[in-house]
């Protein structure tokens, strides 16, 4: 409860900050607040606090809470310019913080109502923020697509919830799980489960419900794309996992098939399509979809307690892509807004640090040891083989090979000699962020136990 109050309070506060225009200090305040949130979650560790029977702050919730709070701290720092340049920064702060509230709800819900509300609270600010380049049509388009399809998916989610309710007579996850495990499974429940699954798959942008993602990611301001690709995705996956773990355990056989299909689909489609992208931003969007595929494998193997794996994967992936997107942002700012590969040509010559760390990020995402991305993928593969999904693992391997292809296109471009743009310097904040991500990528690969051990 405290956490929720804290973050929402921060949000409200930011609105007032807008009134009194304390632009400078507020970032610090937000960071402190989020740090406090982390602190609170650590304090609550192990105490499975139940909030009005609608949320439960168990370790799963808390750990994911810690992770996305940490990520958003990094994000806030990286996004400083985005906030400062825009004249109504307080709205942005408020919206982001509100969506974080949604995130908190999503990682800890124990009731369908909360799932529904959480998703909405998470999404609606996002709809707005995606469109926050008001004058750019592409940004508007992204917002519109995201909004409309989001609402569409929500409708399906709701229909699913209704059907589940209709067949089990409750909105409470535990009650539903109990009912389903004690009674013969009604076909209506199946349909409900599938509809909810599709809706969630849409939220985590898993194929074939991923179509919105590339467009939205590309259209949105890079900063927001970063937020969506890291925090929102993490939260969505946590919710997805939580939903099926707590509610549909007894339908395992059925949804595992579906998950396997979704995972393989996602891996193949996303990677193959990504391999021909020339716009780096869009390519990274596809890559985030493909990572969704890997995380789907973690979900698929829910039976063997892959919470740790999922947590680790989301963290690693988010850190890598946070670094990647941030660097992309910096580069495109320094190449008068280019986002395609040519903007990256000869980056090594122009700024060694940037090139080096982007190379790190790329290697990590493509799962090359010793970087953390490899560890993450490795755990996923182990889980898959362990649950007898060898073929899924093989698909994963092929996918990650294709992935190597497009990630390395960036590296090759960077390490090439020809470059049309002048060298440039980094400001300390950016340097700080990307170095943190780099350290994260290495540290996580050396001490993965620290994260997996959590849950």
């Amino acid at each position: 409860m405290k956490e929720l109050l804290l973050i929402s309070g921060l949000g409200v506060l930011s609105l007032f900050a807008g009134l009194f225009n304390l632009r400078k200090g507020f970032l610090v305040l937000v960071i402190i607040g989020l740090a406090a949130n982390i602190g609170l979650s650590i304090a609550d560790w192990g105490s499975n606090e139940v909030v009005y029977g609608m949320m439960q702050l168990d370790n799963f919730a808390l750990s994911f809470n810690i992770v996305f709070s940490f990520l958003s701290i990094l994000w806030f720092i990286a996004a400083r310019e985005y906030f400062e340049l825009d004249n109504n920064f307080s709205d942005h702060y408020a919206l982001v913080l509100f969506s974080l509230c949604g995130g908190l709800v999503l990682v800890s819900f124990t009731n369908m109502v909360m799932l529904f509300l959480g998703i909405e609270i998470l999404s609606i600010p996002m709809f707005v923020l995606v469109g926050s380049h008001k004058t750019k049509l592409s940004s508007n388009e992204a917002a519109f697509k995201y909004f409309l399809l989001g609402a569409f998916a929500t409708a399906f989610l709701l229909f699913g919830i209704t059907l589940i309710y209709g067949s089990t007579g409750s909105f409470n996850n535990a009650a539903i799980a109990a009912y389903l495990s004690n009674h013969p499974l009604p076909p209506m429940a199946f349909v409900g489960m599938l509809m909810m699954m599709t809706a969630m798959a849409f939220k985590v942008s898993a194929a074939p419900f991923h179509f919105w993602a590339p467009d939205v990611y590309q259209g949105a301001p890079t900063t927001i794309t970063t937020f969506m690709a890291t925090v929102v995705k993490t939260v969505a996956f946590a919710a997805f996992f939580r939903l099926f773990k707590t509610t549909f355990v007894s339908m395992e056989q059925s949804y595992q098939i579906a998950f396997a299909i979704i995972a393989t689909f996602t891996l193949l489609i996303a990677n193959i399509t990504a391999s021909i992208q020339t716009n780096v931003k869009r390519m990274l969007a596809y890559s985030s979809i493909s990572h969704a595929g890997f995380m789907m494998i973690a979900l698929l193997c829910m039976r063997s307690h892959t919470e740790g794996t999922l947590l680790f994967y989301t963290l690693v992936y988010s850190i890598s892509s946070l670094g990647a997107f941030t660097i992309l942002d910096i580069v495109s700012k320094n190449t008068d807004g280019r986002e395609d590969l040519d903007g990256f040509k000869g980056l090594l010559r122009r700024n060694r640090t940037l090139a080096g760390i982007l190379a790190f990020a790329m290697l990590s995402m493509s799962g090359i040891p010793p970087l953390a991305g490899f560890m993450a993928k490795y755990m996923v593969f182990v889980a898959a083989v362990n649950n007898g999904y060898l073929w899924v693992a093989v698909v994963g391997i092929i996918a990650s090979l294709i992935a190597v292809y497009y990630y390395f296109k960036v590296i090759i471009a960077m390490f090439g000699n020809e470059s049309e743009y002048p060298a440039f310097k980094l400001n300390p904040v950016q340097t700080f962020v990307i170095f943190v991500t780099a350290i994260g990528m290495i540290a996580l690969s050396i001490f993965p136990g620290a994260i997996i051990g959590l849950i």
Partner: protein
Amino acid sequence: MEQLVKLIPLFPLISFAIIGLLNRRLTKKHTAIFACIGVLLSFVDSLLIFISQSSFYHPVEVTIFDWIKAGNFDASFAFLLDPLSSIFLLVITGVGFLIHIFSVGYMKDDDGFRRFFAYLNLFIFFMLVLVLGNNFVVMFIGWEGVGFCSFMLIGFWFKDQANNDAAKKAFVINRIGDLGFLIAMCLVFYHFGTLNYTTLFKPGFLSGFSIPTSTLTIITVCLFVGAMGKSAQIPLYTWLPDAMAGPTPVSALIHAATMVTAGIYMVARTNIMFNMTPASLEFVAIIGAATALLGASIGMFQNDIKKVLAYSTVSQLGLMFLALGLGAYTAAVFHVVTHAFFKALLFLGSGSVIHSMSGEQDIRKMGGLKKHMPITYFTFLVGTVAIAGIPPLAGFFSKDQILAEAFAKNQVLFVIGMLVSLMTAFYMFRLLYLTFHGRFRGTHDQEHHLHESPATMTVPLVILSVFAVIAGFIGFPHALGHKLGIENWFDHYLQPVLGSTTSHMSLQTELTLMGVTTVLIFIVVGIARYIYLTKNRVPEEDKVAKTGLKKFIYNKFYVDEFYAAVITRPIDKMSEFLRSIIDHRVIDGLVRTIGKTTVKGGQTLKYIQSGNINGYAIAFVVALILFLSIFIF
């Protein structure tokens, strides 16, 4: 004793090292001294051993160091000294020394002087290792080493790619033989678990294994393949004539006296195995006979003085293998010894001729050299008589012994052998007459600096000719020997190693044999004399078209062309095909296609992402339907 044995190969090695390391800092004189001293010392050494051994006999084993040791395989670098090897030692070092002396004169104004002697010494070293080795692997060291040296020496004048080709050809063909040798070694180790002579050839060791004869046959045949390569037998003989591209002393030492007899040494060394497999013995005999015949017949029509000698070497080696095949190991070795002397002599003679003809080798451009270079002529004559097998010179005895064996064991082979020796007599005297008798046919400036070679070259000739005369008596025929009370020392000496295989025949058969051969040979010589001296016919130029059999033989039975057509070119074609088609197109193509298809797939898949919002909705619903239908129906 051990120390002495160790020293034998050491001297040439040392002198090689000295010459090799400080070659430019060494004057030609010193080089020559070092080189000759090295060989001389090891000659003296082996002579001492020989003397101390001839009185009492026991084989000396010397292990120098553990060489290759892996699991139950153990090949130490060890020497074995027994009569067989000591005979070879003497021949190698002795003849080697003389040829060194000769080379000093022959090569004196060649700027590769030091290189030359370095290689010669190295060769002597490897040759000694070959004959001294106490197991197959050590023998293999020498075996390959001499091949390497012969490569270096054939291609001595490396600026001319023809020589290099000849050298490469020699090495490659030798390698084919070596492969046989290698496989034989593997087989031996596979079946008997050791490659050590003293263990293997311990009486009753091999028979103790009860290995099927077929296996042994394979082993022996493989060994013989190795011998084919080294000793230029059909089908691997073609390298030897080309090898004449090297300096003449090289031809004398390597391609007449020593290296090419390694094959005979090997077969003699493993005679116990061969004795257990009559089939392969027969095979050896046939190959030998065929080679002898072939070599001789080609030799009759050659016009290059060295080529003639080369083919004669081939045929003589054939004779030796014939003897081996008949199980007359002693006879074979005996012929090796005598042949070493007179063939070396002949080659050196030809060398001195070429030297004074300033590089001319075509006998059609020679003639009447007798008066210009008497010593050479005389020694050459001795050599010719010896090889022709006219008593009482060395060749007569050895060849006679072989023929006798053949006569006793297999009449067909005897006839062939006889034929070969007659042909030999013919072409040798043809050579002699064309070169030294008649009038000079060369150019004028050639004529007026015709000269007798310097002492360094003539002295070895003389010494060798002496040996060519007397060497025969060490192996005096048995029956006759009994009569005259001269025992066949050679047989007796080698008996412990090669066993007494000589079939004893009655006195008169032996005498009649000798008589008949001698008479026939004289007739042939007469014919030769008539053709080339009385009517002094000269072989026509290459331009003149030859016909029928003559043409066929003159072109060496087109064997090289045949090999080129059947082996070399097809391999090149196949390789090119593999390279350009299989490797680039098929295999790499496959790899590339995978990459291409991925990108293609991307190109097509991207159109699903139509950017149209209704499309996305449709996709959403359709996917949902699919999932539903999976579970409902």
